[in-house]
């Protein structure tokens, strides 16, 4: 660990920033771009009452599955609760042991991005005339009706990247990019699981996808989605 580097000593020390009751972003889309080692680390802590923001409800064999089973999660905010083989989530939900906030996927991504952009909400047509619109303010602009959706921020983001430099500048591989860049922008504290560490300046400034100012700590773990 070089001086001034954001590299964490290990996963447990990086996860020391997470507190009971935190709202936590999990990057990824299914297993693709999901910070599996960090989530596995989280499932070994005794944290309680977490709210997890993740695209899906978690397959049983994923880190999110273990975390659900441990009872650490009080609420999930997602677009796709019943992933293939997500019996743990289903059972908890049907038993009333976990709260679910169901959000259309584009609205979910945009709510996160809106928080990261320091805004107070946005108007979308997505969900008009559906259950999703219930309880939300509708606003007319230019003769068209929209739903007001609100920003979604987190205390901590656990993300997955391909390369990281000591300042935390990130690149992603293939479709493992997905939710990771917007989540980095909207969390108070961002921890990244990257496949490879590179020297500062090795990644061209124009090729960096997530600027290091959005990253607090990183660990190096494995390559590719699991």
């Amino acid at each position, binding site marked *: 660990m070089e001086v001034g580097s954001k590299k964490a000593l290990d996963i447990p020390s990086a996860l020391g920033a997470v507190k009971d009751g935190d709202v936590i972003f999990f990057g990824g889309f299914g297993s*693709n771009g999901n910070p599996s080692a960090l989530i596995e680390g989280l499932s070994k802590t005794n944290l309680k009452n977490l709210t997890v923001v993740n695209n899906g409800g978690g397959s049983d064999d994923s880190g999110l599955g273990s975390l659900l089973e441990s009872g650490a999660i009080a609420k999930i905010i997602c677009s796709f609760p019943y992933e293939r083989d997500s019996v743990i989530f289903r059972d908890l939900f049907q038993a009333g042991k976990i709260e679910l906030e169901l959000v259309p*996927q584009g609205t979910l*991504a945009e709510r996160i991005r809106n928080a990261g952009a320091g805004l107070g909400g946005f108007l979308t047509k997505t969900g008009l005339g559906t259950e*999703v619109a219930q309880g939300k303010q509708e606003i007319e602009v230019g003769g068209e009706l929209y739903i007001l959706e609100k920003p979604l921020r987190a205390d901590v983001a656990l993300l997955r990247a391909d390369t990281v430099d000591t300042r935390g500048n990130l690149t992603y591989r*293939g479709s*493992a990019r997905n939710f990771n860049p917007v989540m980095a922008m909207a969390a108070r504290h961002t921890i990244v699981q990257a496949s490879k560490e590179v020297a500062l300046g090795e990644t061209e400034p124009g090729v960096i996808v997530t600027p290091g100012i959005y990253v607090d700590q990183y660990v190096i773990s494995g390559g590719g989605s699991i």
Partner: protein
Amino acid sequence: METVIAENLLLSREAMAKRVAQELQAGWVVNLGIGMPVLTTKYVGADQGVIVHSENGIIGMGPPPREGEEDDDVRNAGNEPTTLALGAALVHQADSFSLARGGRLNCAVLGGFQVSTSGDLANWRLPKNPTGNIGGAMDIASGANEVFAMMSHLTKQGEPKLVEELTYPVTTLACVTKIFTDIAVITVTGEGFVLEEVASGVGVEQVKACTAAPLLVSDALQDIPM
């Protein structure tokens, strides 16, 4: 009457995917939903001039990889291995849905539980279930210029999926323009459903019997080309 159509006359999922692929025009940007719609990538020719969008951030998705050539970081919206076509670009989730909502999808092909004569689509929650998977469907169906519903004509219980009014929770109102089923191709017009094509060996009266809404018959009615 609903189940009178012999199993061997029903189009297979693969045959339906082939038929949908024929419908995609050169220059189009097309989103293919998870499950049956995304099978269509197998039948879109590399020289067909179609750009396939995958909601998880791929603009220019190719066919499934050959066995042994899977890249763990290149997945489709169903988290299955896929490929990048020549000239593909990768974006994050908020940019991916900017494209979808922003009017850049010439067409989206989505699965369906029900479609009404006015083109309302239901595909996210069965009425008996407490919740369901919205995923990207609400955003994509709201934003795409045309929405093709690709689905079996009847439910597993033999109930018609083409109806006068939805009885399932709505995904998006007035969005479906064309329906591709295992026995027919039907357009959604201001005057209701119009039968354009039938599966070889299936009679018009059989399609009508399997449809819980008035069904007009096109003057140019033909067999589904295979």
